[in-house]
């Protein structure tokens, strides 16, 4: 019981802290690519503390506030259902499908909050965010379906165990390289990085969902970004890179996944909504389906 | 002549006599003539009822004039005949003409119709059948023209031409039969049919008979008079013609099929005609522009159903034919009562439910029954029909599929009207119904509901009637006791 309670506290906390590192890494990598120095080490903390420490905090109604709670609550829940080295949390009580759906709760919360701000820029942003979700989730579900059928279990603890018992040769990335590749692209879309950041579009729709976010509302979004980097990275590592046997190898793997994403993002411009959909439904989906076909051949 | 013989002869003789007497009686007062006519019709109902309860499974037979069959004039009364004698009389009673439609002339013609119709179903030989058919035909030409307007005369003339042609076809057909078999007594023909009428001649005779009787039975393609006449004739005439008289021709075809023509080719000929009739009737009704024509076309389709039922082998087919015919005899006259008041384009019916809720409600009930919605009688009729068809399989299954598809079309045009009736009135409101206007239809509606409640005993009774009608052997044995 106590152990479970420790899990419940530690898992989101680690996620947040390592998320801060990932955010810093992302900003620094971006700066390096642009031949800048980049922010100082504590910059993510400075930003979040400053936003929470704003003296005035404007709200657009109760739903705006609740959305912030759903945002954090959803991600905290997601962390608890995502096994990491030594901490299984509640991963046995809900599987990968559950996790994927839990990860939609904060998105829904954010969408509702932004909608209640009564700012069309925000609504357009949500419209685009949901559209891009539809775009990247299609390859993503292909990847999930293939991987879960490959592992024969949707329990993430099993998925990790299978890969760890068999070594690198049973890692998803070696057994299902095509699905792993398609999954990487889908993850990139999930992170909302260029060329798929159509719903932020600062110059076009004034950062979309964030347009009316200020103070701690914005701060919560910064916190969410930490969780998001971490969750997406851990999910990918769990499914394709052998999961976490120990923190020392686990965290670098997570960082590496995120690194790939942030390293390639800078060379892109922004796709139009239509192009995001077409691209996502064409290439990663096709690659994923071919990978799925291989998986099905192996299973049968 | 036994006491049963009276019930066979009187239904023909009494109305016939009445028809000749009526103009004389009318000199003492129109009302008296009317009363006499009604009394005679009531008597006919009673006679039908007596015959029904008397015959049981054994049909009553009598040879008029003392000559035995096959030489004498044979009357054959089984439950089927009794049923239609009664139904014809009930129809005539409910829709007894009013003074404004020709007065005593109309009464006379109606009585003539009753006499001819009773004779048609009771006759045991082909020639008498032809005679009574002609009596029915003449009476109905007169009635069709009794509206007294231009359209009525035009329609009646077309009816007359077609009817006359049809009668001559019948006559040729009878001639062929006589040439081949040498007898006109149905029982005798039935006995001889397997050897004399199984060839091309027999088939040709059947074709001509079907087409000839088909004029009255509203079979395609000799039914072109139907929409005109039903649209132009007075409602009471239309109701009787559509509801009852058309079925009498069907009874004749039934007798021919059961007794004489078992040939698969004959069956398939009739089936083809029936299917085309159903399709043409339902589809034409879908595009009909007013209620009268809609029901006229629908009537054609329903008779196609009866004809289709007749082709289904064994008792099931006869039962289905009787059931569909009886159901139609209840429903369609009631429809025509409603249509009599709601004339003109369908669009003008909007608001009908407000003006005449009873008529609108009745319309829905009748429409539901004719489409075949359980537990109304129409459903059971269709159940028997389609059940028999699917049991028979093969082409019958195809025919059943056609019937099912046609039912959807039927629902489309009927409920299009229902939807319009329930819509708020756009311009002029549809006509209001006085109670007396609607009462015949209400009576038929009540009959329909009662029939729903007692569907099980009715089904049993009709099954018995169908079984005895389907029994060709017993027909021959009863009429020609020594000759089997």
């Amino acid at each position: 019981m106590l152990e479970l309670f420790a899990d419940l506290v530690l898992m989101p906390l680690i996620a947040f802290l390592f998320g801060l590192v990932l955010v810093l890494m992302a900003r620094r990598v971006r700066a390096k690519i642009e031949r800048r120095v980049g922010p100082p080490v504590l910059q993510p903390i400075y930003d979040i503390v400053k936003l929470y420490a704003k003296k005035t905090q404007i709200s657009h109604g109760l739903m705006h506030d609740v959305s912030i709670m759903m945002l954090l609550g959803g991600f905290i829940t997601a962390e608890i259902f995502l096994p990491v080295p030594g901490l299984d949390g509640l991963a046995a009580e809900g599987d990968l499908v559950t996790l994927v759906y839990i990860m939609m709760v904060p998105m829904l919360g954010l969408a509702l909050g932004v909608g209640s701000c009564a700012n069309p820029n925000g609504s357009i942003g949500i419209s685009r965010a949901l559209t891009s979700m539809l775009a990247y989730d299609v390859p993503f579900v292909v990847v999930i379906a293939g991987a879960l059928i490959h592992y024969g279990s949707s329990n993430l603890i099993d998925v990790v165990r299978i890969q760890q018992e068999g070594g690198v040769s049973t890692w998803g990335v070696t057994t299902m390289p095509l699905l792993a590749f398609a999954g990487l692209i889908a993850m990139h879309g999930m992170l909302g990085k260029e060329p798929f950041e159509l719903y932020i579009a600062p110059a076009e729709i004034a950062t979309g969902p964030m347009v009316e976010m200020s103070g701690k509302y914005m701060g919560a979004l910064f916190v969410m970004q930490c969780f998001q980097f971490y969750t997406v990275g851990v999910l990918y590592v769990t499914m394709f890179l052998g999961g976490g046997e120990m923190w020392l190898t686990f965290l670098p793997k997570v960082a590496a996944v995120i690194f790939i994403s942030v390293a390639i993002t800078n060379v892109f411009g922004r796709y139009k909504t239509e192009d995001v959909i077409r691209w996502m439904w064409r290439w990663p989906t096709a690659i994923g389906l071919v990978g799925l076909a291989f998986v099905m051949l192996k299973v049968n | 002549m036994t006491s049963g013989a009276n019930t066979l002869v009187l239904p023909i003789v009494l109305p016939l006599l009445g028809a000749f007497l009526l103009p004389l009686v009318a000199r003492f007062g129109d009302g008296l003539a009317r009363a006499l006519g009604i009394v005679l019709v009531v008597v006919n109902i009673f006679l039908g009822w007596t015959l029904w309860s008397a015959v049981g499974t054994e049909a009553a037979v009598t040879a008029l004039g003392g000559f035995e069959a096959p030489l004498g004039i044979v009357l054959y009364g089984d439950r089927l005949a009794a049923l239609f004698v009664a139904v014809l009389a009930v129809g005539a009673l409910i829709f007894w003409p009013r003074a404004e439609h020709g007065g005593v002339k109309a009464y006379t013609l109606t009585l003539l119709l009753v006499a001819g119709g009773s004779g048609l179903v009771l006759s045991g030989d082909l020639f008498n059948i032809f005679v009574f058919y002609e009596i029915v035909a003449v009476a109905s030409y007169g009635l069709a023209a009794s509206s007294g307007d231009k359209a009525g005369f035009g329609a009646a003339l077309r009816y007359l031409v077609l009817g006359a042609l049809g009668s001559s076809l019948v006559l040729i057909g009878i001639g062929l039969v006589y040439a081949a078999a040498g007898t006109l007594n149905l029982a005798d023909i039935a006995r001889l049919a397997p050897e004399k009428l199984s060839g091309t001649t027999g088939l040709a005779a059947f074709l001509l008979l079907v087409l000839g009787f088909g004029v009255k039975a509203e079979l395609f393609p000799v039914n072109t008079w139907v929409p005109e006449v039903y649209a132009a004739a007075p409602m009471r005439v239309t109701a009787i013609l559509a509801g009852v008289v058309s079925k009498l021709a069907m009874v004749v075809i039934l007798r021919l099929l059961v007794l004489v023509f078992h040939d698969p080719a004959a069956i398939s000929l009739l089936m083809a005609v029936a299917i085309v009739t159903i399709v043409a009737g339902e589809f034409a009704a879908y595009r009909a522009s007013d209620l009268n024509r809609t029901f006229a076309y629908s009537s054609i389709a329903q008779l196609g159903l009866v004809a289709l039922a007749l082709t289904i082998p064994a008792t099931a087919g006869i039962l289905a034919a009787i059931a569909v015919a009886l159901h139609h005899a209840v429903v369609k006259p009631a429809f025509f009562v409603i249509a009599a008041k709601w004339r003109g384009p369908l669009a003008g019916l909007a608001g009908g439910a407000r003006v005449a809720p009873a008529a609108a409600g009745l319309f829905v009930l009748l429409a539901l029954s004719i489409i075949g919605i359980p537990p109304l009688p129409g459903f059971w009729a269709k159940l028997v029909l389609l059940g028999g068809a699917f049991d028979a399989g093969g082409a019958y299954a195809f025919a059943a599929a056609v019937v099912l598809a046609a039912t959807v079309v039927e629902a489309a045009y009927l409920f299009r009207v229902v939807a319009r009736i329930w819509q708020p009135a756009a311009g002029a409101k549809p006509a209001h119904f006085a109670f007396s206007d609607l009462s015949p239809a209400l009576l038929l509606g009540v009959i329909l509901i009662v029939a729903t409640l007692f569907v099980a005993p009715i089904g049993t009774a009709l099954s018995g009637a169908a079984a005895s009608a389907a029994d060709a052997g017993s027909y021959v044995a009863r009429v020609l006791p020594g000759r089997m």
Partner: protein
Amino acid sequence: MTGSEKVPVVTDQPETCRVADAEEKSLLRKVMDNFADHCRSRSLFVLHYCTGCGAIELPPTITSRFDMERVGVSPMVTPRQADLLLITGYLSVKTLKRVILSYEQMQAPKYVVGFGSCTINGGMYWNSYATVKRLDQYIPVDSYIAGCMPRPEAIQQVFLDLMAKIDAGKATAWQDYYLNYDAYLGRQMNLFGQDWHTPTDVVAEAKHYGYVGNGTTGEHTALLDQRATWSLDTVPELYPARGRNERSRP
């Protein structure tokens, strides 16, 4: 749309005035405030109001040449997200309205830096009928950068100065807007006319957060309230009710 709603009468004496003195604070509070101030100073989100000519100096300041992200300065898009409002160059009467709107939509603590001479004294437009001569008459300004135009180095310098000021807890010009709102509003009305108003209910906000001073309300805010009532009575289509009224009406 009845006219029975009454906007609360503004009394001369505000109920509370809760701008705490430094001495009143507990030690924990002091530590926390110092930490917060430090974070504020190291994380400046900038909204640049670039209608004037100074915008060209900002890209080099932010991008690889000088990289202001080194000290935590990064550009933001909407006033809601921003801490620092950069007024780059002259303001016409028309654009000043937008500046005031944007300023009021920023969240306190918020800072304003005026770029170049035009914001200080009108600069080369000193005799124009259409430009604003002194920015700090209409909104509180933390720092000015003199010059026409200032170099990126100067911009960096003002950022560093401002950061030091914030870190020391002395960049409190924004409080002045709440505490002396009536005076600011008066000068704004002087320029824009009596029916000038913004959607932000500054007085109510000041009351809510306890930044009410003697100058918060006055004759001009009274005008504002009157006009709000009047607008509800007559043409509600054009003048929405101000502040919380919009949501709290039954």
